[in-house]
């Protein structure tokens, strides 16, 4: 396997002749993708071939007296150590596998910087990362040595996210100076090939995580965004950031007071803000789970993160109460983040079929802080309101960027900064105005600081945070955890049945829970509840405003007026949920 960086021109850099690094690792091999690789691979498939979105530009400093040869030897050792850096992703029909090459060559650019070699290396890394990787044929690493007066000062890298995640980057960063110094490091004893074999062992791991997902899917709102959509801004997705040492100090105080982690404080605060804006007392977030607490995975270079489902019943009490409950839910989520994505997808689709709506879980939270904590926060007594207020004078919010396409409706994330709460919110402006992202940031700070000094009631969160709950026009009603537009649901049922004659009614079910009943006139091909449910689900794909009726009543003829549906002679009725999706023609 060979690879070389594209010819790069960067200001202030003079290109010297490139060098070739030959590497020979301990083994080669081919295996199915690990579950972590599958997650990134699936995301890459959203994009066009050659799209560089999942490339990671990165720089590593070179300190000491190492010469270019020593740096090139370190690069070779790095690729030899970590099989993920010599892995290609090859398609075979519908399946994709990872293929590790034992040996190969890597062309490494060499540059002389006139000044500021680290800055020059960063610019060079961005250039190297600007071109997408050919995952099947190219090594997932490109690099170049940046020298000043002939001495290496930095290594500029572009890496494929399929090869490394944030955790692995830290692993590599820790090894790098030792490799440059020529140290003989013990080889990692767990690689993605080993992980792939483990995930296919008998019995397979992940059973408990699958049960966690099934429970979460049944208790999550079908969407946090079940309210009228709006005209999106251009570009549609907007991201704002905040740097707030005060929020960090307050979050640490709350964590210590309530026996929870700061990660949980930030997660629950995000859930509370989202619930307050969207009118939900139960919030569902997908947490990015690093999965690094499992033995072996901690030292593995390669993507291991997966999405975990966290459903937090915020209740109608206090923010403090929600913190204690939510902490347990976040812990359970982080504990159940390692699973077979195909099995979770099947459970997800089955629940959508049963519920009668797509289950939209496009609300995310990611804590990227190293080891999940801050270090070196300002020494401010959180009980001293005046001191905390002064600290808030250092808070800064800023616009990060706007993007045409993101697979999220809202995305909360910390930044890696160790001594301040660096926090980001991205919103989909097809649902929330772009300025909500910024107001959620200042609202988060206000909520945390306020909760240090007083009991905050959850029904006051929107007001405290300065956020406006979304309005729902007449005709929207809550059914369980879900908000539903009855007029839109009825309109869709009419369209589905083709005759234009149908109605929905909210009635009391046998168990006292609200039962949405759909009345329609049967016609050939649409003469069973199953056929109607199949057609409705297909037509409702992607919508967050409608819900399939729990019960379908098929009549021979329409009534004289809409109030007469319940009294019409019935040809057939039922939930239409059988057979199960695995044998049903309805598939997404």
């Amino acid at each position, binding site marked *: 396997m060979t690879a070389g960086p594209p010819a790069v021109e960067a200001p202030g850099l003079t290109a010297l002749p490139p060098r070739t690094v030959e590497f020979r690792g301990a083994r080669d091999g081919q295996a199915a993708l690990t579950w972590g690789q599958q997650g990134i691979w699936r995301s890459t498939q959203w994009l066009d071939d050659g799209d560089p979105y999942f490339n990671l530009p990165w720089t590593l400093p070179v300190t000491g007296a190492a010469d270019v040869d020593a740096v090139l030897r370190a690069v070779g050792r790095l690729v030899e150590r970590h099989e993920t850096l010599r892995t290609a992703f090859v398609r075979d029909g519908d399946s994709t596998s990872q293929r590790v090459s034992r040996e190969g060559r890597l062309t490494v650019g060499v540059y002389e910087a006139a000044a500021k070699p680290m800055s020059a290396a960063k610019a060079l890394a961005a250039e190297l990362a600007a071109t997408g990787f050919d995952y099947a044929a190219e090594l997932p690493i490109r690099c170049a040595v940046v020298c000043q007066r002939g001495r290496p000062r930095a290594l500029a890298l572009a890496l494929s996210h399929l090869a490394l995640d944030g955790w692995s980057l830290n692993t590599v960063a820790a090894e790098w100076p030792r490799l440059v110094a020529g140290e003989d490091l013990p080889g990692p004893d767990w690689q993605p090939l080993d992980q792939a074999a483990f995930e296919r062992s008998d019995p397979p791991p992940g059973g408990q995580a699958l049960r966690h997902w099934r429970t979460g899917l049944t208790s999550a709102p079908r969407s946090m965004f079940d309210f009228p959509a709006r005209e999106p801004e251009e570009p549609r997705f907007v991201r704002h950031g905040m740097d707030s040492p005060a929020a960090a100090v307050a979050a640490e105080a709350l*964590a*210590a007071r309530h*026996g929870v982690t700061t*990660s949980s404080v930030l997660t629950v605060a995000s859930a509370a803000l989202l619930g307050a804006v969207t009118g939900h007392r139960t919030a569902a977030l997908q947490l990015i789970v690093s999965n*690094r*607490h499992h033995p072996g995975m901690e030292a593995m270079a390669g993507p291991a993160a997966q999405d975990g489902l966290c459903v937090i019943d915020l209740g109608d009490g206090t923010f403090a109460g929600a913190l204690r409950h939510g902490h347990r839910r976040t*812990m359970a989520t*982080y*504990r159940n983040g390692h699973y077979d994505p195909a099995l979770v997808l099947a459970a997800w689709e089955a629940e959508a079929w049963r519920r009668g709506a797509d289950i939209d879980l496009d609300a995310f939270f990611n804590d990227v802080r190293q080891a*999940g904590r801050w270090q070196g926060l300002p020494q401010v007594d959180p009980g001293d309101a005046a001191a905390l207020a002064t600290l808030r004078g250092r808070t800064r919010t800023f616009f990060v960027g706007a993007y045409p396409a993101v697979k999220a409706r809202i995305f909360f994330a910390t930044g890696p900064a160790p001594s301040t709460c660096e926090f980001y919110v991205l919103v989909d402006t097809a649902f929330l105005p772009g300025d909500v992202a910024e107001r959620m940031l200042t609202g988060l700070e206000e909520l945390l600081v306020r909760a240090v000094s007083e009991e905050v009631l959850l029904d006051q969160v929107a007001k405290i945070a300065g956020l406006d709950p979304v309005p729902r026009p007449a005709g929207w009603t809550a059914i369980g955890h879900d908000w539903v537009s009855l007029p839109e649901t009825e309109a869709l049922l009419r369209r589905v049945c083709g005759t234009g004659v149908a109605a929905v009614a909210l009635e009391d079910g046998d168990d006292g829970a609200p039962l949405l009943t759909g009345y329609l006139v049967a016609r050939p091909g649409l003469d069973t509840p199953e056929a109607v449910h199949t057609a409705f689900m297909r037509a409702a794909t992607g919508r967050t405003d409608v819900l399939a009726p729990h019960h379908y009543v098929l009549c021979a003829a329409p009534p004289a007026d809409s109030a007469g549906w319940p009294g019409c002679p019935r040809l057939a009725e039922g939930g239409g949920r059988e057979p199960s999706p695995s044998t049903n023609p309805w598939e997404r």
Partner: protein
Amino acid sequence: MLRERVAELVSKASGGDLAAADILAADCSLPALGLTSIAYLRLIDLLETEFDCDVDLDGGHLNTLDGLVEHIAGQRK
């Protein structure tokens, strides 16, 4: 003995950031000592392996050393 052993496992889960002696002497919650989410996850795995038990995530016993000790002791009865 159980208390000391659980404190050792908390220390191990923290990657050595927390000393067992400090954990035993603390009069505050484990997160207040600096135990992070990922360290908690390691700790739960360590406890379940060592004591062959299921650590229940619901309930306040996760917060403190004594809560954990009591929870594990209850599971071993």
